[in-house]
């Protein structure tokens, strides 16, 4: 109850990991840690789905559905039934 953050879309495929260590470097919540042979997924619940690990994984071992996470945008999408917009960069930045 009252915890909507118990699961997320982070997925890690150990088979594809080449142990380059990038995921442990870029993650700001220490979700990944360096391992002896492959990276270790140590704290998946702390993942905020920023997508940095997926972006910097050279073998595509990590996938995560990242988004801007702007609640206004999601409210708007929920009410109008339109697709969730990403913040537009032309006008006033939203966050």
């Amino acid at each position, binding site marked *: 109850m009252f915890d909507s953050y118990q699961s*997320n879309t982070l997925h890690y495929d150990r088979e594809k990991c080449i142990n380059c260590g990038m995921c442990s470097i870029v993650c700001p919540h220490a979700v990944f840690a360096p391992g002896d042979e492959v990276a270790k997924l140590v704290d998946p619940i702390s993942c905020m789905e920023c997508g940095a690990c997926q972006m910097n994984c050279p073998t595509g071992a990590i996938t995560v559905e990242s988004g801007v996470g702007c609640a206004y945008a999601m409210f708007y999408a929920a009410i109008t039934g339109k697709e969730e917009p990403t913040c537009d960069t032309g006008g006033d930045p939203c966050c």
Partner: protein
Amino acid sequence: MSGTIFTFTKPKIRPTTSQLTLSERVDHFLARWGINRSGHRVEPGLYALGSPTPESPVFVTANYTLSFDALRSSIPGIDCYILVLDTKGVNVWCAAGKGTFGTGELVNRISITGLAGIVSHHVLILPQLGATGVSAHEVKKRSGFRVEYGPVRASDLPEYLKTRSATPGMRRVHFTLGERIVLFPVELAKVLPYLVIISAVLYLASGPLAAAGAAAAVLAGIVLFPILLPYLPTKDFSSKGFILGGLTALPFVLAAYQYGTDDAMWLRLVRGLAPILVMPPVTAFISLNFTGSTTFTSVTGVRREIFIYAPVMAWMFALGIVLLIILTILRLTGW
């Protein structure tokens, strides 16, 4: 193509310093209050701090004044280059999320500035939070430059440069009281004009208590919520907001109930019910939106929160407004 003259201009390198002037500090203050929100920009391109040589480090940042200034003021006495990407005046973290602080812009900016001919090492130090938009191996493939992710905070750079490695603490984001407090002025500036109008309407329709209630519910969400965030019970921002809004509404419930002690009991109860229905959803809505300002809430979680709490907020608020309208009609018809 005869007659075309090709001119090779030397790449432009702008000088900069680590000192922040008074007018720059004033500019930071205005940016925090959302004044000229998207106008706090630095010209993208290459900057020289001190007297850099081809061996000097290259730091990469966004063209938002607060980002550029945080970087240069954190590394006084270090001769280096600063490569400023065109992020449309948005900070590193948000621009990376949108992709403007990204692989494409970085590769493009390296090429425009002729960086390969200026430094010998071909290594770039990026802020860690830029990793959301930048793919290090892609940059290497497309430009030959190796991306090195520095610490999350520019203030850790001097320590980082000693060993060229970040401690686990430097790699973690935190959300301290100070970091939370600087966020509310921009939100306050945004809602203040609307709040004044709504409070004025409520004052005329229902009286000073309703006007004060609106202000209290909004200010609780904008000012108190960021301050109290870690201390409010439950994990969801909406439930935290409902709790805070409920506590804020309590004095208004009592005051409304005590308003006319000679009135019928049902009328006094309805008066007391109005603030507890209207105020908490307002505070909770603002609290939920604060997820966008944090660096730890996942999109999946926020979406789940909206799915669970948005209907509760909408129904409570609508019911409360209906009660307020009924109470206003009763008052105007002489009850």
